[in-house]
């Protein structure tokens, strides 16, 4: 069975919301790491101060191929922040989701593939 690695880079404050949404879809296994990054907007300009790296949280989830589409849409809708008038609008900085191939996966405890 082939698998995919989902790397979701999301806002720190939306992490908990995303995790809860994934739990509702029985996805519990994940790895989290703190990262800094920037996107097309090249960071944030606040007044005259320019921040070129913005702290984000990266979730890494490995799933079988057929579960990927669902998981991506769950992460997407949970990580999207809205404005007051348009709750589902989305803002710059909401993050990115990357999906890559995984050829093999081993559980260290049992050695199974």
């Amino acid at each position, binding site marked *: 069975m082939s698998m995919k690695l989902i790397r979701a880079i999301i806002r720190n404050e939306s992490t908990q919301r995303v995790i809860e949404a994934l739990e509702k879809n029985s996805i519990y296994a994940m790895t989290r790491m703190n990262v800094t990054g920037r996107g097309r907007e090249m960071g944030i300009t606040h007044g005259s101060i320019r921040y070129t790296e913005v702290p984000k949280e990266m979730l890494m989830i490995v799933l079988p191929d057929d579960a990927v589409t669902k998981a991506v849409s769950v992460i997407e809708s949970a990580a999207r922040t809205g404005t007051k008038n348009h709750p589902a609008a989305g803002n710059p900085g909401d993050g990115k989701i990357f999906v890559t*191939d995984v*050829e093999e*996966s081993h559980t260290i405890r049992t050695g199974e593939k």
Partner: protein
Amino acid sequence: MKEIIAIIRTDHVEATKGALESIGVKGITFSHVIGRGKQGGTIQAPDPEGTVRRDVGVYLMQQRGIIRDANDPKYHVPVHKEIELGFLPKKMLMIAVNDDEVPRIIDTLTQINRSGQQGDGKIFICPMTDAFRIRTGERGNKALT
């Protein structure tokens, strides 16, 4: 070329480093991560007699509907005040290697890190299309050796 991503216990890092060095793997990237497995974290139960430390995810699993009855004798563990351990600190290793080295590295990683308990970690093998050595500009397999 392959990218090996291994997520292991923090107390096995030194042993893993030594073992990988002894089979000739030199380039490794480490990062500190937190994670949990398909059990959705674990619950540490205080042991009144102080004899065994138990890691049980059964109550959590019942809450989340994975198992129906946590009081089933099969799962039963005396828990007075449970501590929920959600995401636990782990170390993530990223190793870029040639295809033929992969099985040997997997064997070593599995051997060193296996304690038989939940939370030993995972190893993922991903395809890598190209690699560059920045200092010299070499690419492909040459950049890895």
